[in-house]
């Protein structure tokens, strides 16, 4: 079956738009990780108070969900041009940032498995990136 004639001619800038989308998602995973940490802090007994006033004055929690909102908008913009099978797995970089930020800000102790995990994820995203539409 010849489907070539029905396919739209690839735009010369389509490849760079897809690359841009992948970069947006990768950069925004840092925002997603910051969101997770802020929500974790906002949910801790020191901040969390399950009343309307308590929730509205929980700055880390509100900031955390705002970051999530921004992350989602960026993700949607990236999905316009980018392939879903590329963009979605790139979100796994969030695990990398969360682990590193937890070492730094929450003083969690690094260990071999976590370090091995973040290196493996980064390599995985790199390999995945090579499989994208050119």
């Amino acid at each position: 079956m010849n489907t070539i004639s029905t396919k739209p001619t690839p735009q010369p800038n389509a490849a760079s738009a897809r690359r841009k989308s992948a970069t947006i998602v990768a950069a925004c995973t840092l925002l997603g990780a910051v969101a997770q940490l802020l929500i974790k802090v906002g949910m801790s007994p020191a901040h969390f108070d399950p009343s309307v006033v308590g929730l509205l004055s929980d700055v880390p929690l509100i900031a955390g969900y705002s970051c999530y909102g921004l992350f989602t908008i960026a993700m949607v913009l990236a999905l316009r041009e980018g392939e879903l099978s590329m963009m979605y797995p790139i979100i796994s970089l969030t695990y990398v940032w969360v682990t590193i930020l937890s070492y730094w800000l929450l003083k969690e102790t690094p260990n071999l498995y976590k370090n091995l995990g973040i290196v493996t994820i980064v390599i995985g995203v790199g390999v995945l990136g090579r499989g994208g539409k050119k």
Partner: protein
Amino acid sequence: MTPLLVKSMLLVFGASVVGSFGAVFLKLGAMRLNKNLLSFVNVRLIFGVTLYLASSVIYALGVKGGPLSVLYPLVSLGYIFTLLWSKLFFNEALNGYKFAGLGLILLGVFFVGLGSA
């Protein structure tokens, strides 16, 4: 395996399936965006965001009841579903790089979960 762990695993697994459909609807909605800011208010995007929120609530309920070393890798199973849906609904090309990359990501998430236990 205790009943609580099984329940947690089912919840987290369910959350990853719901989340993978959330991604599909976000993509469907994103494809309809134009220069008009109001194009953000479309049923597909709203449904996608709703599925995402639902997924995070189910995940939060599930993750309390078991060790992260078991539950984290279950979350990343959602990536496998997303790859399948990408092929099925958007006819995106699957190739060795995508499978190998995803395999490494799953392994990496497994290690992070193991280290967080």
